[in-house]
Every structure is written in structure tokens, then in C-alpha cells.
């Protein structure tokens, strides 16, 4: 049996990697992928805690997270395609029309 804290350590590391990706990368698609990485890290923590508590609710929540993530990716990528059609770029710095 692997300690729950090991899973939490891995989850925390993956989550911070996702934050780093969002902050560092300028390509909107890679930023999206980093968000997915963070969601996955949260899922891992959910399942680890569900095992620790001997409770299935954590797994049900992961099911919800995955479903919402799928919807989010579909809409987000559709937005990206629309932006790319208008701007010819996926660079998040180029999308600054609301900048004063």
C-alpha cells in the first residue's frame, strides 16, 4: 500500500506544474493543456482521499470533473478557432483588444 501523502505530493507537484504552464507559455492551446493538467492533479487528490476515507464520493466527483472538463475543452477550443480566424494567431499576448 502506498501512503496517501505520496499521492498528495505528486498531485501538488502536478498542479504547480500546471500553474507554471499557464503563466509561462504564450500559446493559448498550451495554456489550455496546462489547465487540463491542473484538473488532472485535482482528480488524483480526490481519488487518493476517497481511498483514505474508504468512501466512493470522491470518485463520483472525479466523474463530474471529467465531464465538465470535456465541455470546457470543447467550448474553449471553439473560441480559440474563432479567435484564430479573426487574428491569425494563437498568442495570448496578441488578444488584447480590451487593453486600455
Amino acid at each position, binding site marked *: 500500500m502506498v501512503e496517501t501523502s505520496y499521492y498528495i505530493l505528486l498531485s501538488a507537484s502536478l498542479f504547480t506544474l500546471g500553474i507554471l504552464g499557464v503563466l509561462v507559455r504564450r500559446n493559448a*492551446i498550451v495554456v489550455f493543456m496546462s489547465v487540463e493538467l491542473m484538473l488532472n492533479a485535482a482528480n488524483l487528490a480526490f481519488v487518493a482521499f476517497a481511498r483514505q476515507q474508504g468512501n466512493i464520493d470522491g470518485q463520483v466527483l472525479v466523474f463530474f470533473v471529467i465531464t465538465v472538463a470535456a465541455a470546457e475543452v470543447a467550448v474553449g477550443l471553439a473560441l480559440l478557432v474563432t479567435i484564430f480566424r479573426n487574428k491569425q494567431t494563437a498568442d495570448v499576448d496578441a488578444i488584447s483588444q480590451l487593453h486600455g
Partner: protein
Amino acid sequence: MSFELVIFLVTAAIALTGGVGMIVARNTVHSALFLLLNFFAIAVLFLLLHSPFLFAIQLTIYAGAIMVLFLFVVMLLGVESIEDRTKDRLAGQLWLSVVLTLILMVQAITITLLAEPVESQAHNTALLDQLADPALIGAKLFTTYLLPFQITGVILLVGIVGVVVLHQRAHLYGPLSETEREFAAQYVAERATSGQPAEPAS
């Protein structure tokens, strides 16, 4: 060191490699494939945590559907190219974000290591094997979590409608009126006689 711990360590190393590789890779397709590696590693960890249902869901939804969406859009738009970092809008933002993220990571790790040990069911293999049954998740979904389940269905519907609307701009603004059509025909005709190619409408 137990066999399970070895598997965990190897899988964790693969997951971290996938995460780091996704951020470091300059080619967007490579980023997507590193993310796929990470998804597979997380799926194996779900299996280690006695949840075979989530293992299957992770592989089919994440590694299957979501990755196909990502790769499809990357290749459709042709944005595999290298980012231009020379015209950064916020100078020094790169290093500041690396330092702040490292601080956050150290904080998270310290808090996890300092946490008081709580009573754990993780060694109770009989209970965990019982809980690994997907039928239990289904029962929870349709009793305790019925309302969230329905809301998730609505979210998926909103996602479908949103994607269709975003990809059908013409329907947003209605069909072209008679005058607009005449103007467009006139514009194309003028361009054709003057020898300039008609610009594609944005």
C-alpha cells in the same frame, strides 16, 4: 520497498516527465503528446488507487476524446510553430512566475509533510475491493448526486450549443440582405476588372 511502491514511483516519474515536457516542448504537437503521457500515467495511478472505473473513463474521455480535440485543433490551425518570445509584453515575467510557482510548490509539499496523520482506510483491502465496483458509482450518481448529474447534462448541452453557434457565424447575423449581396457582387466585379484579387472576408 514493496512492489506497489515501485510501480507508484515509476508512474509518478512518468507523470512528472509528461508535465514538464508539456511546458518545455516548443512544438505544440509535442506538448499534446507529453500531456497524453501524463494522462496515461494518471490512469495507472487510478488503477493503483482501486478505481478501475475511473481508469477506463480517464483513458476513453481524456486520452481519447479530449486529446483528439486538442490535436485536431492544433493541426487544423497549424500553430505548431515556435513562440516568439522576443516581444514579451511583461519583461521578467518568465522568471518571476517560475520563482513564485516554486514557492507555491514548496508550500504545498511542506503542508502535506507537516499534516497530522489521520485514520486511514487505505490498508483495508476488502473494503476497497468492494468499493471498486462501478455499480456503486452509478447508484450514487442516480440517488445522492442526481441534481449535479442533471446539471452536468445541461452543461454538456450548453457546450454543444455553444460550439455550434461559434462555428456558424452567418446564423448569428442572419442571411445577407439584397443590398449587401449587390454590394458584394459589385465589389468582386470591380476587383476583377482592376486586376486585383478580391480579399477574403475576415
